């Protein structure tokens, strides 16, 4: 993956910026890297588990559920020539996200409710990728409605599905198969897998809009 290198099985992103959430910074030759902890970031867990997701570096991305920006910060390293619209609805973590957005030119922070994409429809452009990490019951619906508003034809999506948020009474595997069925009605699923042991009851799904 662009700007990503593995050191002893753990990925790190090439970055000229400092630490954002307490991650280690180190220099190899004249390149600086930020350690990308798989327990902290689900995208890192995807990589550590050996799945490959290609980035070119100039993508426009809509990031739903940016929280305090842990994963956003690494994605911003990867997409050094792209733009990330980072949507988050909770004020507390948003403060931390704002620090990140002030430091980096490719992050546009949007303080809004991801389940109401019409609310930021005049701000966010058509994007190449929607990245979603939202622990809500209707997380699949949120992806669908946002993709209708913002995803280019042939655009990709990467969603981190949290089974326990959707239905805490069912087995995760049951929730996952329901979600996959639901997603395949609208998208073509390219890759999927669980994030054990880094994130319990989580699955990632990577796919493309027809």
């Amino acid at each position, binding site marked *: 993956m662009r700007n990503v290198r593995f050191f002893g099985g753990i990925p790190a992103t090439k970055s000229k910026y400092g630490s954002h959430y307490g991650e280690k910074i180190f220099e190899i030759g004249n390149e600086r890297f930020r350690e990308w902890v798989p327990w902290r970031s689900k995208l890192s867990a995807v990589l550590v588990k050996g799945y490959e997701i290609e980035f070119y570096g100039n993508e426009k991305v809509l990031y739903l559920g940016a*929280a305090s920006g842990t994963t956003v910060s690494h994605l911003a390293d990867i997409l050094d020539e792209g733009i990330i619209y980072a949507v988050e609805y909770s*004020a507390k973590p948003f403060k931390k996200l*704002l620090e990140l*957005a002030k430091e980096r030119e490719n992050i546009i922070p949007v*303080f809004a409710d991801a389940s109401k994409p019409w609310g930021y*429809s*005049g701000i966010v*452009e058509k994007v190449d990728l929607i990245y979603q990490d939202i622990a809500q019951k209707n997380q699949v619906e949120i992806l669908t409605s946002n993709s209708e508003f913002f995803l280019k034809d042939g655009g990709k999506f990467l969603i981190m599905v949290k089974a*326990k948020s959707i239905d805490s009474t069912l087995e995760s595997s049951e929730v996952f198969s329901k979600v996959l069925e639901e997603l395949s009605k609208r998208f073509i699923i390219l890759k999927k897998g669980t994030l054990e042991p880094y994130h319990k009851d989580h699955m990632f799904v990577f796919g493309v809009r027809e």
Partner: protein
Amino acid sequence: MQKLSYNLWFGKFNGEVEVSKDLKQSFKSARNDAPLQFNVSEIGLKIFGNNYYNLLRKIAIDVAEEKVEKELKSDDKYVIVLVKALEQLDEAINALKEKKEDLELVRETEIQEEFANTLEKLERLRLRIEDEIASVMEKIAPNLTEIAGVKIGAKLIERFGSLENLAKAPASKIQIIGAERSLYRALAKIRKGKEAKVPKHGIIFAHGFIRNLPKHKRGKMARFLAAKISIASKIDFFRGELEEGLYESLKNRFERLRRA
């Protein structure tokens, strides 16, 4: 035919662009009911050129900063007011229901119908308030909401006066809040040298994990739940992000106690 007009962050667009004089204002009102049939950035790039993203980012940061500050100030106060309103409403609805039934027993009148309609309206209002509490709680205290549930979580914030107070409170206080009367009664007895039972739980008794245990196991669960609530509210107040695994440990404890 009327031309469609779109609200964009830098102004209005209806075939032609009308750039707003107040970009912060237009950014805040950039909502459109349906997906746009064009790409905002394409139009914006034509107007602002290479400066488009710089400008957008600057406005986005300014607007977000302003909104975040405002939210942080007022959100738990909002929950508190709503919880109080809900409690009042519950009392009123119950009382009115009784009167309605009294009325029905005496005579069938038109008033009775109006009575029923009004009650129904109040019940709808009640649901609205409940939904609103749930959505604000989810936002300001995701961990507390996951651990304690919306109702108990919101009540705790209300009783402690703010999320901050709750976050700074000891778990033991969280465990018995809502049972002060029986606590003080028990303490008074103990002071006189008599034996007394101190309450095991107050507000948190309503939690399914406590209620669904046999009586002699509830104390253990209440202590554990209060400790987890204490941790959850601390994370909510100081960090604000959902912490994975917190709920899991609570559930495991419940399952173990239930089987033991």
